[in-house]
């Protein structure tokens, strides 16, 4: 009668000491790898930055598909201060927070306003700029009053999932609101007359009105303000658990403001301070 497991003997067995040697080698490799990445991270932190790339003058692509703009320059300055190795990832606005949470990148530097609703999902650094929202309309539209009552029957365009779109949906009930994937598309439909007004960031609109397409239009009404909707300005969004990165970012932000780097970048794009 065959004993159970007897035939196991037929398999090659480890010779004495051989297994131990292999185990040592394996552990050694792991320790070395950990040490090396540890050393590398001490030298150069890898930070992936998500941005939209369709929001001039803050972030957009130039003709050679390089990311350019105020946000990008600020991001690069921050990375330099943090001694981090930064890479950029372009992501559609609609999915920009979900992609951060899904670990596709580590920080959003894309002119994102710090609002209470977003703070439920992500953490924000201190603001890095703050510009008011404004309405634009076609020249000669005769619109001066931009209160919800005065705009009854008009069509207002905005980029979807922005602070501007939530503001419109909350306050301008009874006014038709059209939402677009990008700010450019919203502007295009204002120029063609499908919409009567567009609500967006004043700087972004100002930049657009300098272009050929944007020459059709002008600001109407005063600055649109609402702390609840527009928050405390634009900040850098991070995952809530990345507290270390948040501290580093805030420190770097304070440094570039203190040493004049921020001012230099600001001057490059705007003749006035937007902080």
């Amino acid at each position: 009668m065959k004993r159970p497991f007897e035939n196991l003997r037929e398999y090659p067995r480890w010779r004495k000491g051989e297994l131990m040697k292999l185990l040592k080698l394996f552990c050694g490799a792991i320790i070395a790898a950990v040490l090396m990445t540890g050393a590398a991270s001490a030298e150069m932190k890898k930070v992936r930055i998500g941005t939209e790339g369709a929001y001039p003058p803050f972030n957009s692509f130039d003709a050679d598909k390089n990311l350019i703009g105020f946000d990008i320059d600020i991001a690069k300055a921050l990375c330099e201060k943090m001694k981090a190795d930064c890479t950029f990832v372009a992501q559609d606005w609609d999915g920009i927070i979900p992609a951060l949470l899904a670990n596709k990148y580590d920080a959003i530097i894309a002119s994102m306003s710090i609002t209470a609703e977003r703070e439920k999902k992500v953490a924000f650094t201190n603001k890095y700029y703050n510009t008011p929202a404004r309405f634009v309309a076609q020249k000669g539209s005769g619109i001066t009053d931009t209160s919800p009552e005065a705009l009854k029957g008009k069509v207002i365009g905005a980029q979807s999932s922005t602070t501007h779109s939530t503001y419109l949906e909350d306050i301008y009930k009874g006014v038709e609101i059209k939402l677009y994937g990008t700010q450019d598309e919203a502007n295009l439909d204002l120029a063609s007359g499908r919409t009567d007004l567009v609500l967006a960031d004043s700087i972004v609109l100002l930049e657009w009105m300098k272009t050929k397409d944007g020459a059709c239009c002008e600001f109407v009404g005063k600055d649109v303000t609402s702390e609840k909707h527009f928050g405390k300005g634009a900040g850098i969004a991070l995952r809530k658990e990345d507290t270390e990165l948040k501290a580093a970012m805030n420190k770097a932000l304070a440094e570039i403001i203190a040493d004049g780097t921020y001012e230099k970048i600001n001057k490059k794009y705007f003749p006035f301070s937007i902080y």
Partner: protein
Amino acid sequence: MSTVDITAVERPEVSSGRPWTTGRVVGIGVLALYALIAFFLIRMIVVNYDTEFVGRYLPRMLGGLWITIQLCTSAIVMGAVIAFPLALARTHTSRIIRGAAYGYVYFFRGTPLIAQAFLVYYGAGQFRPVLQDWGLWWFFRDAYNCALFTFTLNTAAYQAEILRGAIANVHKGQWEGAHALGLSKLITYVRVILPQAFITALRPYGNEIIFMIKGSAVASIITVFDLMGETKLAYSRSYDFQVYLWAAIMYLAMVEVLRRCWDKLEVRLTRHLKRSEE
């Protein structure tokens, strides 16, 4: 003389049940995988069920579903109206008419639906003064109309090709027979050719409608709040992945209803080909 012991006869071993072939094992494995995925997806909906969330987004998504159904139905019906003359033009004796019809089909089958939708919507915006002169701006101003216009032209091209192929597939003898009976060309089409062509065209037609239902999601990028548009909006507000799952279920339900209708239609159209059960 002894009796033969029957039990001693050697019999071939009878295998019980089906054999475990590789195909069977793989098949069961794949089915198990499907069941597992379905289980986790359904579990996700059940576990994450939130009355407030559902109350806020589900009605809007159902509204979007209704827009999708309207958009597809109108586009398919109006496309069919254009498709029939187009199919005839494709086989016309005049070279110019044939060429024009071919050019139309060539363009709409050869470019992506999303590009066509952008071209119509933002293109119309650029030509506003011209369109206003022609009194057409009111139509192109509305995003829904633009989507409907694009989808109708697009599906007309596909439907025309399906119809043309199906008509060409009807045997020549049918034409000759009808001619010999002295039937007019119109009557021949309506009573003889088309009923036979529809049998061939039925399945490709069903496919085309399914493509249209799924393709209609393109409308969401030109600001129409169809099912996909509402889903994207809900996702960008809630960051909750399950809204896409709901949308998938709704699209699946639409296609399933269509599939069942098509099975019934096929039975009806081919009833003369069935042998009676006597």
